[in-house]
């Protein structure tokens, strides 16, 4: 297809396919373990970090990691009374406001903030691709090694310890893997739309899949197809992959939800 002959499109294609692998490896777990809000939060929390990284020229993934850790720490402190949704919501809107303030103070280019929030089609670097590939390999490895621990915990949180399966550290690995996936997805789809590649395809396949293996493989395949379609759309109407993927994956979800009733 001639649309994919340009170097930036080929790079974007590699990135989106790698993100599809991540979606396949982790999306099922995000959906089964109800981590969709967590996924979205890590992305949003990274926004102020991305603003600073952009202006100071440090690696955005690193800044995102720092911002995400800071967010996690602040959330621990703030959510003591039991309304975790409110605490998280407050910190997330605070992160967005902070990012906006830093952006208005540091540089006034509107396009810069758009790219951080919604991703970029033409601006993906070799580092971005490399880090995404590393994250994908790590996620696949962790998923293979910890599949049973994650499944047992997800299926029956009460009875899992009685099975003699480790619980605490596999849990931390899962959250770390999801956070890493979010951090590498930021470049292409932006801080506010990481769910559209990591969560929505998995939610769609979940409506149909009868076992875990087909859920995972199906998610990876669907995310890849939707991703390619989203890239084509993004290039055609001149937007970044994030919004394009949102529309594509959302439409497919709605269609499957209606048809599969």
């Amino acid at each position: 297809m001639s649309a994919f002959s340009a170097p930036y499109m080929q790079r974007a294609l590699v990135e989106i396919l790698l993100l599809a692998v991540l979606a396949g490896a982790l999306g099922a777990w995000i959906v089964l373990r109800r981590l969709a809000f967590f996924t979205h939060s890590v992305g949003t929390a990274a926004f102020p970090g991305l603003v600073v990284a952009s202006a100071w020229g440090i690696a955005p993934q690193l800044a995102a990691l720092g911002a995400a850790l800071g967010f996690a720490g602040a959330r621990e402190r703030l959510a003591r009374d039991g309304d975790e949704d409110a605490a998280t919501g407050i910190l997330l809107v605070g992160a967005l406001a902070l990012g906006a303030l830093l952006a208005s103070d540091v540089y006034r280019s509107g396009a810069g903030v758009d790219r951080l929030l919604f991703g970029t089609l033409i601006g993906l670097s070799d580092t971005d691709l490399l880090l995404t590939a590393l994250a994908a390999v790590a996620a696949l490895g962790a998923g293979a090694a910890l599949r049973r621990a994650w499944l047992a915990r997800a299926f029956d949180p009460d009875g899992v310890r009685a099975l003699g399966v480790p619980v605490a550290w596999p849990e931390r690995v899962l959250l770390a893997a999801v956070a890493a996936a979010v951090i590498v997805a930021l470049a292409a789809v932006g801080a506010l739309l990481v769910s559209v590649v990591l969560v929505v395809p998995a939610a769609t396949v979940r409506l149909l899949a009868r076992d875990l293996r087909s859920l995972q493989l199906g998610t990876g395949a669907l995310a890849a197809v939707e991703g390619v379609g989203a890239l084509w759309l993004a290039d055609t109407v001149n937007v970044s992959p994030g919004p394009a993927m949102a529309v594509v994956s959302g439409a497919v979800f709605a269609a499957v939800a209606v048809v599969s009733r």
Partner: protein
Amino acid sequence: MTLVRTHDLAGGYRPGTDAITGVSFAAEPGEVIAILGPNGGGKSTLFRALLGELPHRRGTVELAGRPAYVPQTERARLDFPVSALDVALMGAYGRTPFYRRLDRTPGLEALARVGLEAQAGERFGELSGGQRQRVLIARALVQDAQVLLLDEPLSGVDAPSAASIEALFEELRGEGRALLVATHDVRQARAWQRVLCLHGRQIAFGVPGCLTPAVLQATYGGELVVLPDGTSAIAVEHHEH
């Protein structure tokens, strides 16, 4: 060889507050022990204590290996993409290193023992309540533990499943295992070898003959219904799920 022995077991979820106290009992091979008590009386807490999951625990517990735990089916996820066989095989997770393929035979055999070998490939959530309970028991069988902890395995279960489960209990007794069964059914409890009455503190432990109206009154407090002849008492069934 005694399979379970506790002495003055006590503990709870918060420091300083005991959910259970003074629990002292022993389970010998081949015994089914009914754990009786009201909701919130400590039956689940006792199981947690035996599994080593209670944050604060005092007293002594001796166990012949890790017990297998059969929770109530309502707590397991019904919308999960797992088959009955997948669930049964979870019992082997603890002893199979992650890089080794799971041997399906123990799972299939366990499902056969509970009468569900034909349902092995079906989705767990699509089975009936009684069938799901049996699958969870099959999971415990795959674990091959000497001690089984069962949390109300017969509540809300259809009659054929209940009969099949009770027959299985007899088989497991014959294999020399010990079963601790939390239950609301006092009548059922009288058919087994021992009863343990728990209402925060241990009220009684012994043969079912020790279930006098006084003991039942102390165990259930206001939940007791005493029949007009004054000698029998039936615990009221609670549907808390």
